[in-house]
């Protein structure tokens, strides 16, 4: 995998736009199709929002560290926080049959990403790893460019 791209933002919602923009640039650079790029950006936005809301629960100056890895096969992002640890067995999407506000972030992440894991085996915080297989997506772009 190529050299990772790292970005650290404070735990204030106003920085969500920044992380979305940086990721958009990175995915554009790797010619990830726009629809896929928007979905990956949504997952990272939701993960960071969950950290702000549930892990740090208010303080806006705590670190959220995102590391992006991308090659011709996979997009992987690791997001580290140092807040309240989550119980990964309790993180699950809610039933969508109920039309009510909230609780969709985990559904988006699980629906879009191929692999999602939460690691809390550390003194503080959580390391979230999300992986999306890009093989089919990037191959079709490359074939289109050859035409």
């Amino acid at each position, binding site marked *: 995998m190529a050299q990772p791209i790292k970005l650290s933002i404070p735990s204030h919602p106003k920085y969500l736009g920044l992380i979305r923009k940086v990721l958009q640039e990175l995915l554009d650079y790797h010619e990830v199709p726009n629809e896929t790029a928007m979905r990956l950006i949504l997952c990272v*936005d939701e993960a960071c*929002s969950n950290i702000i809301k549930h892990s740090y629960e208010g303080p806006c100056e705590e670190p959220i560290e995102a590391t992006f890895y991308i090659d011709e096969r996979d997009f992987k992002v690791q997001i580290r926080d140092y807040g309240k640890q989550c119980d990964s067995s309790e993180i699950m999407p809610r039933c969508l049959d109920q039309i009510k506000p909230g609780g*969709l972030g985990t559904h988006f992440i699980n629906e879009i990403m191929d692999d999602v894991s939460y690691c809390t085996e550390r003194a503080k915080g959580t390391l979230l790893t999300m992986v999306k297989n890009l093989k089919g997506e990037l191959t079709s772009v490359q074939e289109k460019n050859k035409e």
Partner: protein
Amino acid sequence: MSIELKLEHHSDDKVTVSVKGDIDMSSSKKARDTLTPLFQANNKAIIVDLSGVSCIDSSGIATLVEGLQWSHSSQNKFRLVSLTPGVKDVFEIARLLTVFEVFDTKEEALVN
């Protein structure tokens, strides 16, 4: 990132809200603060124009679901207009595209 919300009141107790910018955790409160008084004012229809929104997340969706709930409880209309591809995709993943009344243009949403 901030959003702009522009209100246009129509003579038949209908109001359009045009939104410009990303609706995320940082801006959804502003959207909610704009919409909530409209719910309380008992408008016959609230039409939200999303043509200026390229990005929406679960907090933005939650704000719009509150409009849907208001619509169900008050028997008034809460309609969405001009969803951009990115926003439409998020609604599809949330399986909400068929739950909301969605129109291509403001004119269609106002007439029906």
